[in-house]
């Protein structure tokens, strides 16, 4: 009898355990952790767009493919390798594209409208799900087709990376053209972010330097030597109207906008050596920030507007320092990163700095992670200068030295893809990437 009771008790316990195990089954499903991914770009096929009526003056698909490729986050399939060229969803044979490992497909077509303008229609397709992720029909004048292509690129980029695209933005830079008898022509120019569609804002026989975009993208501050001495001007991009905001004895250089657009940080040497000042644009009053016998220059506001970074050789070689606007304290940022670090700019998220790093093998563009102090050299050429972040932080434009002097180049923020941007002769200096188009 005792044995029976014992058996029942034991079996009851087993029963309870089995039941409990059943309840835990959901959590018992085999789990596999994927902790690594491929360090490669997304395979995408941008198929040349079909056209109805007049062939548009811009190859929209080519612009899109080039834009995506330049970010380093996409590897568009070369046109000549495409297995087919569908322009409609119904024409897509998904199996073919899966065979090539293509994850995404962009198809579209352009149509000439009765008024002579064009209508561009495109679809972004998830090949493995066999469904459209996004699709639009956009009317565009022939002269705006490049912008349309950039806007389409932005939509695709944002959909596939989760980050905002920065293709429909512009860059400002200075070109230098050498003329006969040693004379030169300096031009302040504006182009699409891919370097196309350049137009001149200002032309001068004296040097132009350091263009800087206002946060709203409507104005550009720059340095001009037109008065034989350096002065800082602010010019309205649309109207061309300009205003001199800083001039006088010594150097007036390196303008940088505060995030609210009401102040300008700059370098002046009226008191002897170059020091960092802040100019209040509404009152025209200057406030000196640094007091140091060494050179202090190239200021740049942090995105939160609470501090400035600048270059100073107070420690011997040029290094990056930070000035706290709340309490006026200065601290060095670059330690153990070589003997030469200059012209730093904040990334849009404020977490890292891009700067020019000088070493035994020349000057290169490098990225400093402010949280981890991780330091990464992004370029491999020898005379790389003037880095500027894209407003989405995904890319950096800079100048590098080519056969015809300094050229415009772009690198993805991970250094994976670097590309020289097109230009029509002459040197290019100090590119500045615009904010997002409002």
């Amino acid at each position, binding site marked *: 009898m005792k044995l029976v009771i014992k058996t029942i008790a034991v079996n009851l316990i087993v029963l309870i355990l089995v039941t409990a195990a059943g309840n835990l089954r959901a959590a018992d499903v085999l789990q596999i952790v994927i*902790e690594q*991914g491929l360090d490669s770009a997304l395979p995408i096929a941008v198929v040349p767009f079909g056209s109805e009526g007049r062939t548009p003056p811009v190859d929209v698909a080519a612009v899109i493919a080039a834009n995506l490729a330049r970010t380093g986050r996409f590897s568009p399939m070369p046109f000549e390798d495409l297995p087919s060229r569908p322009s409609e969803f119904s024409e897509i044979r998904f199996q073919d594209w899966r065979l090539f490992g293509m994850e995404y497909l962009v198809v579209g077509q352009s149509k000439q409208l009765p008024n002579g303008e064009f209508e561009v229609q495109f679809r972004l397709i*998830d090949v493995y799900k066999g469904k459209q992720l996004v699709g639009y029909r956009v009317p565009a004048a022939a002269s705006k087709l490049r912008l349309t292509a950039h806007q389409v690129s932005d939509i695709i980029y944002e959909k596939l990376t989760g980050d905002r695209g920065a293709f429909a933005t512009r860059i400002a830079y200075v070109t230098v053209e050498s003329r006969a008898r040693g004379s030169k022509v300096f031009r302040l120019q504006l182009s699409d972010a891919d370097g196309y569609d350049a137009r001149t804002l200002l032309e001068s026989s004296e040097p132009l330097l350091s263009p800087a975009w206002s946060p709203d993208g409507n104005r550009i501050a720059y340095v001009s030597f037109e008065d034989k001495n350096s002065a800082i001007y602010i010019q309205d991009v649309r109207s061309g109207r300009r205003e001199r905001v800083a001039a006088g004895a010594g150097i007036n250089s390196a303008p940088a906008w505060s995030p609210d657009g009401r102040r300008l940080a700059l370098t002046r040497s009226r008191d002897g050596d170059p020091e960092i000042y802040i100019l209040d644009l509404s009152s025209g009053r200057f406030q000196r920030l640094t007091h140091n016998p060494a050179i202090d220059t190239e200021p740049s506001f942090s995105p939160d507007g609470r501090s400035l970074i600048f270059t100073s050789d107070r420690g011997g070689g040029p290094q990056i320092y930070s000035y706290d606007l709340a309490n006026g304290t200065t601290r060095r940022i670059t330690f153990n990163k070589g003997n030469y670090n200059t012209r730093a700019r904040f990334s849009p998220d404020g977490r890292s700095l891009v700067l020019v790093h000088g070493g035994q093998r020349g000057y290169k563009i490098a990225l400093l992670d402010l949280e981890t102090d991780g330091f990464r050299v992004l370029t491999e050429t020898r005379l790389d200068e003037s880095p500027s972040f894209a407003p989405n932080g995904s890319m950096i434009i800079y100048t590098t030295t080519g056969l015809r002097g300094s050229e415009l180049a772009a690198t993805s923020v991970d250094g994976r893809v670097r590309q020289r941007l097109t230009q029509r002769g002459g040197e290019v200096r100090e590119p500045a990437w615009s904010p997002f188009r409002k």
Partner: protein
Amino acid sequence: MTFKRIDTLRAFFYSLAFHAGVIGLLMVSVEFDRYTAPISATPSKIVKAVAVDQQQVDAEIKRLRAAEHKERRELEERERKLKEELEKAKQARQAEEARLAKLKKEREEQERKKRAETQRLREAEAKRKQEEEKQRQVEQEQRKKAEAEAQRAEEERKRQEALRAQELLDAIAAEEQQIAASQQDEADQGIISQYAGQIKAKIQSVFINPLPNTKLSCVIHIRMIPGGEVVSAAIVRSSGNSAFDRQAEIAVEKASPLPVPSDPRLFQKMREIDLIFDLAK
């Protein structure tokens, strides 16, 4: 039976009443005869015609007349007395009749009361019988019910007993199975983890992290069919970034079919997997 007896009783009473009535009537008629007999026996005087002198005759006539007058007065007196007596007799008879009628009425009343009482008794008796019968039926029904209840309880008890016995057997079987399974499990686990490693490698070889500088993680629950083809992949926990989630999904699709054991028993243990995409920055 009972009713018959009651009928007989009633007949007896009727008969008794009837005889009493007849006897009464007979007594009345006897008395009536005794009073009427003198009236019918009154004799009439016959006059004999003989020639006599007138005076005599007149005296005689006068005497005769006086005699006749006297006789007539006597007769009238007698007649009057007779009438009185007759009247008295009549009144007496009427009184007697009234008495008899009253008696009869009383008897009838008694009779009626007796009948009503009998009826009442009879009905009461019937009612009592009926109620007895009803009570008997109710009792019988209750008894039957109780018996059925008892039987059902007994059956339920037996059923429960059988059930408990079966449960015990099942539990024992489950326990045995559990022991066997746990031994098998250890062996299986080794094989499964080998395949899990292969699945991980295959997915990692095709997964492109679209945001390598951001720490993201998502969980995809997949179901496979034998052979390893992924038939469903659902994001059960999103990274919050649709691009990352989508790339994880595409990686699963691209890697399908995944390496799985061909042994159906082993496959069963890994036909559903939670893939945790958790990339170190």
